[in-house]
């Protein structure tokens, strides 16, 4: 198998498992990485166009994550960096949705942790947003979702439901997510798919998995007929967690994984994950076409360390809207793509 010939073929057709593994193993210098990214971008342009979708992550009534023990990479397993510090009121959720709609967004994500309420907050948040606005809603509350609530979300017209595995290597899953169940997550993803609702799912890299694991994961997601979005997240050590000394994923490894995912999943939306958005332009070069902007609505006490800053507007006593949209638009347009905040 020759690297350049394979990339030439990949411009026109989906790559196989064997080829995906070959690309992971071979794209290990700047020349080949650059060729891989160019091909992935070409495939993105050809199949989903030169529009880059932006959605806003709005506030949620989610009660936080009760996974016990918490995932070992997550801020929830640190005393210093807990993610869920405030729960928004229904009024605050509605206000955040209205602000998102006013500045031009067509789609928003409501999300949070596995609170144990089986998606009740997802239904509640979606109702609030739909009542207050004409926005499209995508929800992501982990695997904490019942069949009944998926049906309710479908009836409310939700555009997609998230259910991420992070890894499908069972051993690694247990190691990094000891309070979670891969089997349960697979069942929830299947339920979402069975209901005919769009599925969004994430792959986390640099958590001890092999390239073969990544390939298996990318191809496992081919089983879902309604797969709408894949997001690639790179492990990021959070101080105070059991994995605080594990090295972060490199930006190039994230980009390679995105590019190879694009050569397999050619027509769906492809995204990164929060915390590394200053790498957005590299992600665009790697074939992504979608970003959910986290940090645009935040608890007040979380806004200061952000790399991205913008005009701040208060929402109730505890939350703020930080208008970072111009930063995203600038980054996207510098790569020659058009920003799409109105699309589905």
């Amino acid at each position: 198998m020759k690297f350049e010939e394979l990339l030439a073929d990949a411009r026109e057709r989906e790559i196989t498992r064997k080829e995906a593994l070959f690309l992971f193993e071979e794209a290990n210098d700047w020349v080949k990485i650059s060729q891989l990214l160019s091909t992935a971008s070409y495939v993105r342009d050809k199949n989903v166009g030169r529009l880059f979708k932006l959605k806003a992550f709005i506030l949620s009534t989610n009660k936080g994550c009760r996974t016990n023990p918490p995932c070992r990479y997550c801020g929830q397993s640190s005393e210093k960096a807990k993610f869920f510090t405030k729960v928004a009121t229904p009024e605050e959720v509605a206000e955040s949705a209205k602000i998102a709609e006013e500045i031009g967004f067509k789609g928003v994500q409501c999300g949070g942790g596995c609170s144990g309420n089986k998606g009740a907050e997802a239904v509640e948040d979606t109702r609030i947003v739909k009542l207050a606005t004409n926005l499209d809603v995508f929800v992501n509350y982990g695997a904490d979702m019942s069949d009944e609530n998926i049906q309710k979300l479908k009836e409310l017209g939700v555009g997609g439901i998230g259910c991420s595995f992070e890894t499908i290597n069972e051993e690694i899953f247990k190691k990094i997510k000891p309070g979670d169940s891969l089997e349960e997550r697979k069942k929830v993803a299947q339920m979402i798919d069975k209901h005919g609702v769009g599925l969004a799912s994430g792959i986390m890299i640099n958590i001890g998995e092999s390239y073969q694991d990544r390939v298996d994961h990318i191809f496992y997601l081919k089983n879902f007929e309604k797969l709408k979005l894949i997001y690639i997240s790179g492990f990021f050590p959070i101080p105070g967690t059991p994995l605080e000394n594990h090295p972060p994923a490199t930006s190039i490894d994230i980009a390679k994984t995105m590019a190879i995912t694009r050569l397999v999943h050619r027509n769906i939306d492809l995204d990164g994950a929060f915390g590394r958005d200053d790498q957005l332009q590299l992600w665009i070069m790697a074939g992504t076409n979608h970003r959910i902007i986290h940090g645009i609505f935040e608890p007040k006490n979380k806004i200061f360390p952000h790399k991205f800053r913008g005009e701040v507007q208060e929402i109730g006593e505890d939350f703020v809207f930080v208008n970072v949209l111009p930063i995203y638009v600038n980054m996207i347009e510098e790569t020659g793509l058009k920003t799409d905040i109105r699309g589905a």
Partner: protein
Amino acid sequence: MGFDDVLKNAEENEITKEEALYLFKETGRYDKALKLFEIASRVRDDEIGNEFKLDGFIGLITHCTVDPPCRYCWNSSTINRSGFGIESVLAIDEIVEGARLIEETGISMVELGGGTTVGSSGEKVIKAVKAVKKATNLSIWINVGPALSESTLRELKRLGVAEVCSSFEVNPLNERLFKEVKPGDDLDARKKLAEMINDVGLGYASVLMCGLGESYENRVDHMFYLKQFENFKYFLITWFHPVPRTPMANYPLTSPLEAAKTAAIGRLIFRDIDIHISGYEHIPLWIMAGVNRVVHAGASVHRVRNGAGARWHTIGAEVKHINDRLNFVNLLPTTVKFITGAGMEVEPEIERRWINEV
């Protein structure tokens, strides 16, 4: 002039001012950026090889008295945690201990950095260099602004200092912009320092900051201004990040792609010198753009930062508290992986100590 033709020619030949400007203007799409990067990386590999250098950093060795401070700098923030005040200057024994720790990591070059102490001839700098040279075998470069006399530069040369920096940040030919963003600074003093560094035969280093309001023409003029110095050895690119509660707090953040484009075009102009872009998280992108050396991505010694966000600057690093007020931050476990993952090598001693650790 066609984009592909300019790049083809650039593989073998230094580009002209017109071509540099053309490349800035034409590289408005990711696919063209990737083509530009490919040629810049090829030129880097052909001209200086495939080894990526990681500088250590010790600072501050001098404090900043520029008044009013530069409008983009932490020193002009109303938040009372300036990083460039006298309280951040290290004592000689702290500098020595820091240098020893840095040398133990396998790093061979260290920046001794500080603010511009206006009117100083650089006595503190000489003391710091002598102390580091006595305690270690580290190579040294100096970055303290225009606060060095000609005799100090001669002494630094005698002491074996490799490079000294005189930064402009913005195009030195655009006096209006310089005054606007650096109202308390002295452009002529910086130009004079650059000439003196060059004339005494020290390596000359200089910083261009992207995103301070300059045009592409300004960036090209800036680079060709630096090109006149025969001893210009180290081109450092930084990119504007708004600092809260400064006069430029609401000025837009510059993107990494702009910085990478600037480095790549710089590589096609300067060919065989060292080129840096700040921001270790982006090293793989920098490598794709022709960069071969980065400071603040190896090991650093500086005052403990208490400000919000300090925690995030050390993600992936080993942090050691030398004393209550002094930190040793070693990013090599992370950055070596970033570099080798993008297909470049690190210096042999760094490789020996860290390659099996990552």
